[in-house]
């Protein structure tokens, strides 16, 4: 009995670290399989996170089942404490995002739009219809005889940022509408684009015209075209500032604004972030 206890004491550090690794791996795998993953990372990385989580679990099991004697030191304690502290922090963040997500919302990929309709969402032109769940969207839409190319705001931003001239003359995109104070009452339409994770997310925006009837904070589908900004508009774009609770770096196109030809208020896209960007048609859209 004493021998077994001594053996347990001697191998306690390995067992402890095995348990911590199991928790870490389990957390990663669980988050990768959850609906909240996109709140932290681009969904295309979920298989990577899931795989890494599983491997970490296997490493933890190896330490737990075949521990070796080792001393407990300050260094070991520190690393255990650091990872445990991270797990507490991450659990808080996960719980917070889970609480904010509507119970029937489901992430179905960058093209999926299955969020419930916002109360009060209605078309300005009386033509608002919530986007059907997982309905495939045609790459082009014709409205009042004009053909609009469907793309996302980040794709349009990237094309302009790279100096391309072949951007669509008429396009349809979805964005969040705000009227920040630094824009002096002007309208801004923006989307958060995530390449890898929240830390590299960018809040890309355009000044917009023709959206005066839409309330602040609404999500809109804009059918429109681009027009050059005047000198004052350019100056405003360069003074772009994030909101008080903004987690992304905000950049506003310094040369062009979006002129809305038609607009519809839409439900909040699920997810609201953009994760996919294509160089040419068919664009990723959403």
């Amino acid at each position, binding site marked *: 009995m004493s021998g077994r206890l001594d053996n347990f004491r*001697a191998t306690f*550090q390995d067992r402890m*670290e095995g348990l*911590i*690794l199991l928790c*870490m791996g389990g957390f990663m795998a669980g*988050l990768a399989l959850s609906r909240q993953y996109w*709140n*932290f*990372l681009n969904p295309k*990385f979920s298989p*990577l*996170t899931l795989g*890494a989580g599983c*491997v*970490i679990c*296997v*490493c*933890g099991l*190896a*330490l737990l089942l*075949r521990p*070796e*004697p*080792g*001393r407990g*030191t*300050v*260094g*070991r304690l520190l*690393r*255990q404490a*650091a*990872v445990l502290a*991270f797990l507490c922090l*991450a659990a*808080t*963040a996960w719980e*917070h995002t889970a609480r904010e997500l509507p119970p029937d919302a489901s992430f179905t990929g960058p093209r999926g739009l299955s969020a419930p309709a916002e109360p009060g969402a209605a078309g300005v032109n009386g033509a608002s219809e919530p986007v059907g769940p997982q309905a495939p969207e045609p790459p082009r839409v014709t409205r009042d005889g004009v053909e609009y190319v469907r793309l996302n705001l980040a794709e349009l931003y990237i094309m302009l*940022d*790279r100096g391309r001239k072949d951007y669509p003359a008429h396009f349809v995109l979805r964005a969040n509408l705000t009227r920040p104070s630094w824009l002096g009452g002007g309208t801004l339409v923006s989307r958060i684009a995530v*390449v*890898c*994770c*929240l*830390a*590299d997310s*960018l809040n*890309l925006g355009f000044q917009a015209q023709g959206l005066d009837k839409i309330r602040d904070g609404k999500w809109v589908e804009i059918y429109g075209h681009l027009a050059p900004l005047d000198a004052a508009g350019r100056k405003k774009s*360069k*003074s*772009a*500032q*994030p909101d008080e*609770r903004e*987690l992304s*770096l*905000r*950049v506003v196109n*310094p040369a062009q604004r979006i002129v809305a030809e038609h607009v519809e208020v839409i439900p909040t896209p699920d997810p609201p972030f953009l994760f996919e960007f294509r160089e040419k048609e068919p664009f990723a859209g959403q």
Partner: protein
Amino acid sequence: MDQSTFQIFASIVTSIVLEAAPFLLLGSFLSSLIAVFAGDKAFLRMAEKPLPVQIILGLAAGLVLPTCECGIVPVARRLLRKGVPAGAAVPFMLAGPVINPVSLAATWVAFQGDWRMVAWRAALVMIPAAALGWILAAGKTTELLRPTLEMAGDSGCACGCGHDHAHGHGQEHGNGRSVAARLFDVLRLTGREFLDMGRFLVFGSAAAALCKVLLPQAWLAPLSANLWLAVPAMLLLAVLMSICSEADAFVAASLSMFPRPALLAFLALGPMLDLKLLPAFLTVFRRRVAWLLICVPALIVYALCMSLGLVGAIR
């Protein structure tokens, strides 16, 4: 910090750690494979080669191995412990995260096929990496790595397995054991190394998230207009933001208000020095070496980028 800010902080820390964890795991796994399967004399012949050849070998390893800065330190530490000369290990550690195919391809895509940005980025990383390899080449492993490092339990054994066995490496982790036993060794070592380096990842991510939450973005715009301010500002931003070398090109490309030399400074320094690497350097390497690893790349990248901007080599 109010609750809303804390939630943003927690989300950013979580996202950075989750993004880096697979790469840290890969680095820990590679390190453990080297520890268990590579014989003690496997790398000794490299030390006999002339220094320029060592540096070229280190850079060449960085060119072909898809590593990122999140997992590079444990690999470099293991290589040094296995007898790889600093002339090769240090250039590999500093340049590998940038000059690997994945990172270079990401830069090419982000800057719309601008090969000059790709080439300058690679050059701006290889020059300080080679310089530090040259400077540190004379040092022995014991003069580079901290002897008090509690890598896996203070065993005092340089193999890193971290246990109380007074063994010969060849017997415990090496030739005398079955493949299954050695695979268990790899798994245990990977787990311990992941935890050991994971603490730096957690501390670094927390520091980067704090900077992101607390520093106002408004200071970026006025700095972008002046090259003398833009380059140091982007160097500082690279350190504070601690973005993975696979993704930083996309962020840099979006900061188009900054001159190209400043963007290059951001792209070159970030993978060599950020808030994840700082505590790792200070803990893994001796103090003098750690400060060289921190200061030399920053100074060289600053000088080169300022020169590029002043000469007008890239706009």
